[in-house]
């Protein structure tokens, strides 16, 4: 059988195969929170808010040895073309849980027994990659809140579109491309220092050598994302952010 031609040699967005979308990040976007951040990549936007440590109720859920990290991910009703009914659904509950696992791997709440740290992730506008954008924002919000962390985490969606390996899938690549071998979507989260995987999911079809290659692509992309995250955290008092509790528009405004 003749080898079929690769149908995806040029990306629909015009990006290079390993090129991430333009990113912006900012901390301190929700003044009443203990920590907050917004992370935007292309048209995907994620807001993350951290509240706590605060006493966990009901009491039987408390852990006397460790604080509890609790993540809630959700998409705003107007974030996608078909309105999403407000409230939790199976997709958002699963994403909340895998995000919680990813963040728990670097957060150290041993100093805060019986408390909970709540992380709320909300997506105002979606163009694929919302869970990874949410994790990038959440990691920044946790750091902004001063929650002890062993290291940072950065997240990226990589994948395979027909025969091409691509970095940072957008909506076209993630859900509208069905030709040839179709689309494989692999969200990954890497820890910043030890370079370990804190989240891994995969949907599609991919060979082992190709999968190995996507890991390397994701690692490189996460290095770029980490720079954006750290810049925003350093700029907490500058133009691109505000210290906790101070409104962005100045006093009284």
């Amino acid at each position, binding site marked *: 059988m003749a080898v079929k031609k690769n149908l995806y040699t040029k990306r629909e967005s015009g990006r290079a195969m390993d090129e991430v979308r333009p990113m912006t990040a900012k901390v301190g976007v929700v003044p*009443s929170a203990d920590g907050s951040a917004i992370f935007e990549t292309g048209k995907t936007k994620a807001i993350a808010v951290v509240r706590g440590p*605060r*006493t966990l109720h009901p009491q039987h859920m408390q852990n006397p040895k460790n604080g509890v990290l609790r993540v809630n991910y959700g998409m705003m009703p107007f974030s996608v073309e078909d*309105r999403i009914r*407000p409230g939790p659904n199976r997709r958002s509950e699963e994403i909340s849980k895998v995000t919680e696992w990813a963040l728990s791997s670097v957060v150290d709440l041993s100093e805060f027994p019986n408390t909970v740290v709540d992380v709320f992730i909300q997506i105002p506008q*979606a163009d694929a990659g919302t869970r990874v954008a949410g994790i990038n924002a959440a990691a920044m919000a946790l750091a902004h809140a001063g929650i002890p962390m062993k290291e940072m985490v950065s997240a990226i969606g990589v994948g395979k579109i027909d025969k091409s390996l691509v970095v940072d899938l957008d909506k076209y690549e993630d859900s509208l491309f069905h030709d040839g071998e179709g689309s494989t979507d692999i969200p990954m989260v890497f820890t910043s220092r030890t370079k370990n995987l804190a989240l891994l999911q995969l949907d599609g079809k991919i060979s082992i050598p190709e999968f190995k290659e996507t890991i390397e692509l994701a690692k490189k992309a996460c290095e770029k994302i980490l720079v954006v995250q750290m810049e925003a955290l350093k700029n907490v008092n500058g133009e691109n952010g505000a210290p906790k509790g101070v*409104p962005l528009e100045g006093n009284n405004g």
Partner: protein
Amino acid sequence: MERMVHPKVYPWRATMGDFIIPNLQKEKIEEFIAENKRLDGRKSDEYRKLVVKDGISENSASAVSVKFGKTEVLAGVHLALAAPYPDSQDQGTFMTNAELHPMASQQFDMGRPGIESVELARVIDRGIRESGFIDFKGLCIKEGEKVWQVFVDIVTINDDGNLLDVAGLASLIALGRARMPIYNAEEDKVEGYSDKGIPLNKDVLSFSMTFHKIGKKIVVDVSKEEEAVSEFRLTIAVGDNGGEPRITAMQKGKSGVITSEDMETILKLVESKWAEMFPKIKEFVLGK
């Protein structure tokens, strides 16, 4: 066992539930307001800075952010195909949903919408529906069969008081800026958005102002702390009747009672604040 309280969190804010103001702070707020001053430096009838941002999501008919000082609310509009109600076969339908999201405040909890969310959504829903601001007949595609259903979705981002007025205004601005979807009758589906707005009766625009009684004074655009110590609140929606304010909706909240003196003060404030705010708000909602 000793309870852990994060050093950054005030002890009285460390748990979810009611927003508790210590007596000392309550007295201070009332004392200040008696002298026509407020903790943030405003006068009792002074609004915070109003900031409107568009383009929060391009995947919906519109989505905007509205801030009064530190209070921020997002509102988005979606239009979907639906069947009309049996008693109004030639009219579109409308639904408002509000989520007091726990990210916005220490006091909001996850789970089923509480009475605050329900009241907020209902007051805003009634205000828009009953004012006739949306031209429901203009949303009819085929009488008795197909109409547009309009959704307004409100998400609170940060609560620093007066959510009702901010969310109400955000809803109006989102409706004012919503794009009409394109309906393909042959294939019976929606194909993107046109440049046109949705059908509105622009001359009946009204917006709400909430007045709180704190100590002996009536205060507008309250902060979260002020909201927690007030005796009652009165929300009044006011529209334009040939250059004169015309009341279109009211809702009293909390257990304090309104004296006739209070009412006189409030109605005077309605006149002066309406004259000051209405042109600004009209421009935000309907453009220049």
